Each structure stands twice: as C-alpha cells, then as structure tokens.
C-alpha cells in the first residue's frame, strides 16, 4: 500500500511541484519506509521553492543523520545558525549530533543555549550523558570527566547504552476518546496518589506501582500511557522491546537497570514498557539463561530491591497477556491489569475526526462511518482513511482536479479492510474459555458476551 501511496504522491507532485504540504507527506512516508535517499531528494526539491524553510532544513539534517552523513547534517545546522537564531529543537538536535561526533564541549554549549531559550526542550538523558545537571549546570565530575574530548563512560565501553528520551507529553485524558473506566482506574492508582500523597501515606500506601494494559494491537494502549504522563505533568519514558533486546546479551540487565535509574532520577516519571510480554515472557518459555536473567532483573527493579521506587509509575502494555510470567502480577508489581478493548462507537467517530484533520473533507458523517467499522482498532481506522485518500489521489491524477473526502469514500474503504482485532479475539476467546481459572480474562468474556 505504501509503494502505491508513494507513486501516487510523486505523480501528484509532478502536476503541482510547489505543493510543500504534499511533498512533506511524501517525505514522511519515505522516511517511515527508511528510504532516506528518496526523502533527501524530495527535501532538496522543496528547498528550491522555499530556500529559507527552517523546518525543511531541520528535516534534511535528520535525514542526513539517518543516512550516516553526520558531517552533512552538522553543516546544515551550522548554516541555519549563521542565518539567524535556530529553534531550541534544532539546537537540541545539534547538541546530540555534536556529542555523537565527540565534540562534547560544543555539545554542552549548544544544550545550554537551547534550554535557556525554552526549558521545555530539556532532555535529561542527553544532559546526563553530557555531564550536565538537571538545570543545565556543568557537572564535570570524576565519573563524567572528558577523556580526549569524549565522555569517560563512552570511552570505557563500546556497548551502547540505550538512548532513552524522557519526554513531557502534552496529551491528557481529554484527548483520549471513550475508555472512561480505564481512565478512572488509572486515576485511582496513579493520579490521585500523586495529588493527595498524604491520604495514601496515612493508609501506608506508597506512591507508585504498576498497571498492565492488554488488548488487541492498535487500540490506544500507548496513547493512554502517554496521556497518563501528560495528566500528571510527569516525565514519560517509553521502552520498547527493541530498546532492551538490541543490546548485547548479558548486558540487557545492565541497560534495564540504567533505564530505571534514569527514571528514578526524574520522578515523578511514567515508565512505559510496550510489548512487555517479550521482555517478561514466561520463565518456562525462556530456556536460555539470558532470558531468565532479564526477567529476574526486571522483577527486582519493579520491587525496588536496591532502590526507592517512590514516584516511579510503571505502565506496561501487551498484546499477549497469556505469555506474561505470573510473577509479574504479584502485589506491588503489575497489580492492576486492565483490558483495553477496541474503540467504541463514540471513540471511533472521534478517532476518525482526528485522522482526517488537515485533509480536504466534505460533510463527513463520522457516526455513520463509525457504525460501519465495528471492531476496528485505531490503526485499522487509519488504514481506512489511508485507503480512501489513495483512491482520491488516483482520481485526482486522472482527472486533474482535487475532490474532498466524503462519507461514502470512507465507507467504501472500510468494506475492503478487515478488522485486525478479529484474529486477536479468536485467540483470546480460547484463553477465556479454557484458561481463565483465575478470572484474569473476565473483561474479555464480558466484551465477547460469552
């Protein structure tokens, strides 16, 4: 589908080469497909029409960096600085590239400059790597001293430490359509303890703990986690399976510990583990010692055996709760397990509204489309819109005129897409029927009306 989309966009750009919006859609698409060469060509073409477009230059720098052309990326950022004050985002990116190039002092300088302009862009992990304190003050202590222009830690080991960003999400629960019960559970477990710690402490409850969300893929688990962090205005660290497993086997535990430590230093902080089942798959399934060590490390981090987990909020998501080690469900670990179902009618209509934002539309009856997309996940709804847009592009190229998206276009596209949640529920149904002695899957039973 992506290839068709790329071809359609390229054809549309031939007809309207100055359309920057369209070209940026193509650039994003190419970058998502890791076709950085093509993305670079498109960005250079866009700069012909808009030579001063800072966002274009920044994107081009990102693109060159992805291609491994560090010098090229830095040259572009330098030229932006010569033309005027670059944005704090561009400066943070430059600091990261300078650190990569081993120019630590310049990177520190760039970081300071960016944070002084806008404190929101502060990147604690980057700061730590640069030996800078939370507020930007240099901390060239013994543990982080420079060795030949590089950080001592970087010289001492060649093993990559995960580059985990701690973000400050701007989305909150008000941006999440539906899911009221889930939001209430999260409020009770995470948000109220933060806002009223004294009440919780008087009952001997600490602030923190974990919530595990499970459900079919693409139904908003990650978004909900991000919104939770936004709701309490805390830091947000998203840890995917690739972040942990990409390391050398035997070093994964150390990396995991580093991530927890980094989050502990930035409390309150929401740590979000996506696809946690792969990290914490049943110890029976993990026959290699490497897998077992990782699980044991994760469990001890959750327990806070060697450190204080107060203010550390842990959210995790999985599509396969049945593969998760039962030790994860003990009190103090993931003691709340929440089912995230596919979006309901109201939520589907809202999701559609968000997805089509910025696209040419005409009198779309979102509720009508939502009714026709029962069981669709957010990702499926995006696929519906993508397909409808592609059809429109084909027509636009043929007829030479742009026509807006209508209700019927979306309904026609919806008929051609099968809900991806179906397969998940086929498996989940078996777990409900045959392996639900603990009642863990009762919410699915209710959802499926079994």
């Amino acid at each position, binding site marked *: 589908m992506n290839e068709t989309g790329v071809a359609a966009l390229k054809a549309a750009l031939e007809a309207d080469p100055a359309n920057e919006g369209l070209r940026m859609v193509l650039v994003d698409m190419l970058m998502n497909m890791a076709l950085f060469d093509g993305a670079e060509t498109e960005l250079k073409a866009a700069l012909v029409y808009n030579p001063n477009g800072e966002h274009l230059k920044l994107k081009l720098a990102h693109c060159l960096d992805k291609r491994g052309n560090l010098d090229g990326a830095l040259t572009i950022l330098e030229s932006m600085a010569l033309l005027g004050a670059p944005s704090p985002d561009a400066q943070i990116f430059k600091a990261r590239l300078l650190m990569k190039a081993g120019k630590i002092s310049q990177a520190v300088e760039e970081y300071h400059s960016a944070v002084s302009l806008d404190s929101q862009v502060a990147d604690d992990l980057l700061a730590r790597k640069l030996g800078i304190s939370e507020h930007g003050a240099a901390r060239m202590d013994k543990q982080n001293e420079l060795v030949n222009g590089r950080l001592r830690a970087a010289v001492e080991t060649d093993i990559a430490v995960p580059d985990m960003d701690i973000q400050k999400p701007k989305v909150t629960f008000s941006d999440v359509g539906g899911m009221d019960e889930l939001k209430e559970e999260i409020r009770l477990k995470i948000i109220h303890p933060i806002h009223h710690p004294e009440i919780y402490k008087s009952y001997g409850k600490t602030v923190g703990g974990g919530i595990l969300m499970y459900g079919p893929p693409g139904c908003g688990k990650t978004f909900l986690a991000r919104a939770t962090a936004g709701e309490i205005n805390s830091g947000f660290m998203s840890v995917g399976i690739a972040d942990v497993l990409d390391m050398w086997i035997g070093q994964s535990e150390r990396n995991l510990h580093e991530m927890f430590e980094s989050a502990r230093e930035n409390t309150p902080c929401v740590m979000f583990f996506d696809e946690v089942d792969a990290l914490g798959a049943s110890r*029976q*399934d993990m026959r290699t010692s490497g897998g077992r060590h990782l699980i044991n490390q994760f469990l001890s981090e959750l327990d806070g055996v060697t450190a204080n987990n107060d203010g550390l909020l842990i959210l995790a998501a999985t599509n396969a709760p049945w593969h998760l080690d039962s030790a994860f469900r003990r009190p103090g670990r993931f003691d709340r397990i929440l089912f995230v179902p596919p979006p309901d009618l109201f939520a589907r209509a809202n999701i559609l509204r968000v997805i089509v934002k910025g696209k040419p539309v005409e009198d779309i009856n979102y509720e009508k489309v939502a009714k026709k997309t029962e069981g669709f996940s957010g990702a499926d709804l995006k696929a519906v819109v993508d397909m409808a847009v592609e059809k429109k592009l084909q027509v636009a190229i043929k007829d030479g005129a742009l026509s807006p998206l209508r209700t019927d276009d979306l309904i026609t596209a919806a008929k051609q897409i099968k809900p991806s949640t179906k397969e998940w529920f*086929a*498996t989940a149904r078996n777990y409900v029927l045959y*392996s639900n002695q603990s009642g863990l899957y009762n919410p699915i039973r209710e959802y499926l009306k079994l």
Partner: protein
Amino acid sequence: MRNPHFQRGLQLLKSRRLKAAEEAFRAALLDNPHDSDTHGLLALILADLERWGEATDAAEVAISEDPENPDAHYARGYVMYQRNRFADALESINEAIALDNEDERYFWIKAAIFADQKKWAEAEAAAREGLEIDPEDEDCANLLTLALRKQGQSDEAEAVAKRTLEFAPEDATTHAELGWGALHRGDHQTARTHFVEALRLKPNHRQAQSGLLESIKAKNLFYRQLLRFQLWLGTLGRGARWGIIIGLWALYRLSVGVLKTHPELSGVMYFIMALYLGFAFSSWSLGALLDFFLLFHPTGKFAVTREKKPTAIAIGGLYAGTILGIGAGIFTGIIPFTVLGFACLCLTIPTGSINQCDKGWPRYTLQAFTAVQLLIITGYIIADMTGHYETAWKLVVPFAILTFMGSILTNWLASVTVERR
C-alpha cells in the same frame, strides 16, 4: 560472541515473535551473509509463517553455505515436512542424522514425518531413538505415545504418557494424548478431564480442542460406541480398514439377496439392513449432527470450532430436510417429497466429510462434487414443478450413482495429504 542481531533473533524466536525474529536474522545476515545457522533459522521462521518458497530457498542457502552443518539439513527437513513433502523431508533429516546422530530434535522430526504418513512402526522407532539421546524429551515421548496408541498398544501408550508427565507436568500435548487414550477405552469422563487440562495449559491446542468436542459428544452412548469403532479402525492398516468396510457392505448385499430368496426372514434382514445403513450414514455425518445439537447447548456451543460450525449447520439442515421430506411424502403420498427427503440424506455423506479433507484440492473436489449433486436435485425440483415428470425421474438415477461414488470418494479424499507450494 554471536552477532547481537542473531542473539536478538533467537530471543524473539523463543517468544514466537516470528516477524520480528525474521527482521533480526535478516539484519544479522547483513553483517555475516555466509552464516549457515542464520539462514537455517530464517528457514524455520519462514516455514512457520507459511512462506514456503522463501523458506525452501533459505534452507537450500543454509546447506550451500556449509554442507557439513547438520542444522542446515534439519532446517530443510523441517521446511519439507511442513510442506508435506515427506520423501524430501526424510532425505534431509537422514543427512542431518548422518552428520550428527546425537541430537534428539532430528529424531523427533523423523518420527513426525512417519506419523504424518501413518507409518506408526517407523514413527515409534524414530521416537525411541530420540528418547535414547534424551529420555526427557517430551516431543519424542509424545510421538511415541501417539505411535503406540495408533498401533493398538493402549496400555504402553498410557504408561509412556504418564511417565512423560513426571518430567513435563505442564505439557499440553501429553494431556491431550492421555485424553485420546481414554476415548479409545470409551472413558469419556476421564478424557474430558485431560482435554480440559491440556486446554488450560495451551488454549489453542487443536488436538485437545477436537478431543474435548469428541468427549462431550461421547456422552451419547451410540456416538461413544461409533467413536470407539472409528478409533479402533484407525489402529488397523489401510488394507484392513477397507476390508472391514467392504465386508460390511458385502454382508448388507447378502442380506438383500437372502431377502429375495427367503421372504420369511424379512424381519431379520430388514434389521441387518437398517443397522448397516444406520452405521454407514452415522459414520459419515453423526459427528457433525451432534456438533449441530451442541450449537444449542449453553456451554457446548463454544467447543464447536469456527471451522466445524458451517458443516454442523449444513448437516442439521439436511437431516431436517430428510425428516420433513420423508414425513411429508408418507403423509401426503406425493413422491417428490420422499425423493427430496432421501436426497437430503444422501447429501449428508459428502457434506459431513468436507472438513475432514485436507485444505486444497481434496476439499475443493468434494465441494465441487457436492455442488454437482445439489445441481441435479435442483434440476429435479424444477423439472417436477414444471410438469416434466419424465425428465425429473431421469435425474434420480445419476443422483443415486453419484451418491454411491461419493461414499467411496469421500473415504479416499479424507486420506489424502496435499503438498504445500
């Protein structure tokens, strides 16, 4: 130390994230394109993803990179086994064993290849060899249990399964094997307990799912005996199975002959004929009919899998058609009603067996065969309603011939295994 992508691929493969594992192994190949093990593991993943052509290519590359690598031959054997190309699979596995005869996985797959071909003695021998290397290999032990049960050695099969549970108490296949053993003995309650346990451990276990369904249906005394008979038939060789079916048919024909020459024995002969016809029809469609009744049971309906549901509904409809047609024929004296009733009964033969055929041409053939029969019956109805009575009657004969041919065809098609391309 292996390439990190390779290690990551192994981790992902263990947690059955096949697509992610494929990506990791492909990334590992960028660094080390000539690594035979990586190509071999990629072949296993691609086979599980049912991308047969790519899987075969990857296995061939694994061998060409290192022809002395037994795991590369094992990978090819596994791919060929999954494709139902048993001769090729066996060739590769034998090559792997020639290079390394101390890996129980090679004997496990060898036993599985024989089991899929219903060569139970050979499967037993291969499984025993695997267990000699590792006495606690549950895969080999489960195949040994299956092979013994299929050869009628129920007691030894049960002993092996119980011994397996001592070192692998949470092995779903072992519990399912014990369930099938209990069904063989006609003990449906014990069978059900084992199937429920197997499904608790592994809810997607197909063998346990179908076993649970059979154990629920086996509550019906008649079905229980029929199931025992069918399971017992399964323990005989192919020739013996056909011999018994043909023998029963010969007995039926003999009864018809005796009826003509000795009308005074009509009571006994009619009983034998009814018994044979009842046996014949129930062996083809009683299981699906009971599935149909289970659809109305508050909990039993969940045991009927999505794949079996359409057949169950079709069989239920056809039996309803049989009763209504024959009933209306008797009460009204209108012969076409009776013909339609019998036609419905005849259609239960292929319809009840469609799902027993392997996916691919055997299933399509039976579906096409059933469609032709349906077409003839539709022709009969149209001819009768438009007053072409003679044409209508002419259609009854080919229908009857097709029904007879269909009963043989279904038995044969159900035993065919299709190669996957």
